[in-house]
């Protein structure tokens, strides 16, 4: 199926790959290797005295009930963000794919949030949901709902999930729209002639044909929720109240950069790295089989 390009000799392909390999080595393998090494050490902030402590950092981590809570938070957070961001994006893409007036404008507007920096997105959500200054926050309190995400853990989780999902909708929208546009008209017309109604056409024809896009986005969204939502959490809740919105990546940041405990932070990074490796492997092994290319 796939076209292969045959290079004469091996020098040229290696040369062409070299820049990418160099970047991967410097920005991925080297720091990842360091993280693995640091996870076995206990150091002061300045690295003046260093002890090798074996697996102690990992033992401490899994003996900490708060860390297990953070694992739970991360699962709730990532699954919710992925589910919301993908379903909303799919709905919008289907709507924007129809022949409606001004659809170019809709499309452009829908892509905008992607250009917003995470911290700025968080500030926007503060202006929406803050119990004293936020538009919705004040309205909710005015209606008698005890809304205060600074103290209510579930509400805090809801706000960070909404903010994180909102930012990712644009990205998903783009890919879904491109996926929809690449579905051949003839297939849809054939289904229509056979008497399939729009909803049925969507679930039996469109959705399966979109599955490569959906699968790709699933991986990307989970990775996003795991690693790139740090800015939103930091600006909105700082992991609080109590530890309600602390996720794995946020805790690794706090322990490493704020608490200056590089050993524990590195151990957490290693745990994260392994978790994502397993997750990705699992996805390619079991979910990709069901994907139609």
């Amino acid at each position: 199926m796939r076209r292969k390009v045959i290079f004469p000799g091996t020098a040229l392909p290696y040369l062409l790959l070299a820049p990418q390999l160099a970047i991967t080595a410097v920005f991925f393998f080297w720091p990842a290797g360091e993280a693995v090494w640091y996870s076995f050490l206990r150091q002061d902030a300045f690295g003046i005295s260093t002890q090798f402590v074996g697996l102690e950092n990992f033992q401490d981590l899994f003996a900490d009930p708060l860390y297990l809570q953070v694992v739970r938070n991360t699962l709730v957070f990532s699954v919710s963000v992925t589910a919301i961001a993908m379903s909303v994006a799919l709905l919008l893409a289907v709507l924007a794919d129809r022949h409606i007036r001004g659809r170019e404008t809709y499309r452009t507007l829908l892509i905008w949030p992607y250009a917003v920096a995470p911290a700025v997105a968080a500030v926007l959500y503060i202006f929406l949901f803050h119990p004293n200054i936020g538009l919705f926050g004040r309205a909710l309190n005015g209606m008698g709902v005890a809304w205060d995400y600074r103290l209510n853990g579930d509400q805090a989780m809801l706000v960070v999930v909404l903010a994180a999902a909102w930012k990712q909708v644009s990205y998903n929208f783009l890919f879904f729209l491109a996926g929809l546009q690449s579905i051949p008209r003839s297939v849809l017309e054939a289904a229509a002639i056979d008497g399939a109604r729009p909803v049925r056409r969507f679930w039996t024809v469109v959705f399966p044909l979109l599955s490569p896009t959906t699968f790709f986005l699933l991986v990307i969204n989970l990775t996003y929720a795991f690693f790139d939502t740090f800015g939103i959490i930091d600006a909105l809740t700082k992991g609080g109240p109590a530890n309600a919105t602390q996720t794995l990546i946020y805790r690794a940041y706090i322990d490493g950069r704020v608490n200056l405990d590089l050993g524990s932070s590195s151990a957490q990074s290693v745990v994260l790295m392994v978790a994502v490796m397993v997750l990705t492997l699992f996805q390619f092994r079991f979910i990709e089989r069901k994907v139609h290319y």
Partner: protein
Amino acid sequence: MLRRSLLAGSAGLLAAPFVAPSVKAQGRTEIQFWYGLGGALGERVAEQVQRFNESQSRFRVNASFRGSYVEVMTGAIAAWRAGTPPHIGQVFEVGTATMMAAGPAIRPVYELLGEAGIELDPRRYLPGVRGYYSDTQGRLISMPHNSSSALMWINLDAFERAGLSTTRLPRTWAEVREAARRIRERGAAQMAATTAWPTWVMYEQMSAIHDVGLATRANGFEGLDAEMNLGHPFFLKQTSMLLEMQRAGDFTYGGRDGAGGAAFPAGQAAISFNSSAGRAQVERDARFRWASVVLPHHDDVIASPRNGVIGGASLWVFTARNRTAEEYRGIAEFFRFISDVEQDKWWHQVTGYVPLTFAAYEASRAEGYYERNPGADAAITQLSRAEPTPNSQGFRLGGFVEIRNIIQEELERGFQGQQDAATAMANANRRANVVLRNFERANRRT
């Protein structure tokens, strides 16, 4: 994928290209100075540095804003590990223990000044300021720079609406509770009371004022083996009071760190607890009559309250392999410059931080500054009204940033109704002790 977790390696790597090696520009020795004050306060820092540069032609201090206090500190540490630290780094007071334990990475200020032949008598500085940054022999380790203390801020219009006296303001917690109850009952303000910096105000300041140690071993001044003292009945009393006030609707939790500070200048909170350095903002934004007074105390615990502790930051001198004597000399000259009475007085009056020296305080008083700005000396009174005891000289606890967060987290769980005051304090005590033990292990020099 692991972009976010390139913590150890890349921090140094990233910091490195931005640090210009100390070079002689136009025959002047360059001194790199990293600071973490944004906005108007940052402009004042830059202004003072410029004045220093204009005052002589031998050195040039290159001041650069490096983000928050945490970012300045971690950035400077990462740069030290990479061999290219700034000469001077502004480190917030909670980072003091980490810096003090850094041995070869820092040069104590008394040593630096001694070598430069500059005499700065530590007794020139306010006791609360001096104590926090001195070693047990009373020698200055870092240079006092911007120090504040926590104050009680009162919306006098809201007090009047509640039928409370606007001249005889609450002095004890019992009076604060009574006032807050009246304000709520009369609907005189959206919130009766709130606080910024929950740990700093409600635990650190209160521990000092009531002469109850936050930790053993003189709050860590006497050694790394200090243990937290949050199980003490005083902290239980303080926590119970906060939880009761919140449950009654007399106290509103405003969030972690500085987040709770916005409600007061906006006129939403009748009583607020916040840093004295918030004065400039209140002056600018408040559309009501207000007052800033010393923090309340529990009169059934202590009859005459002790001194409060400072907040803010101090300046640390980082070592590096290629530092020359001339560079150290430049740092010392800069420190002498900012300790100068005229400079210090200016800094105090334009920023709202307390003056570092008695002389600047006297000079400000002599020119009638406190009569024109009532309440501007409340922080100074609070810092210097008593000679510091081992419980009120400050805190030298390893991992103090983390400990502050732990106390905030456990307090939040209490406000959520998940646990009572005793459990909150027991949990905070246990978790903070783990931090102290880890710090002790990591920093033990053998």
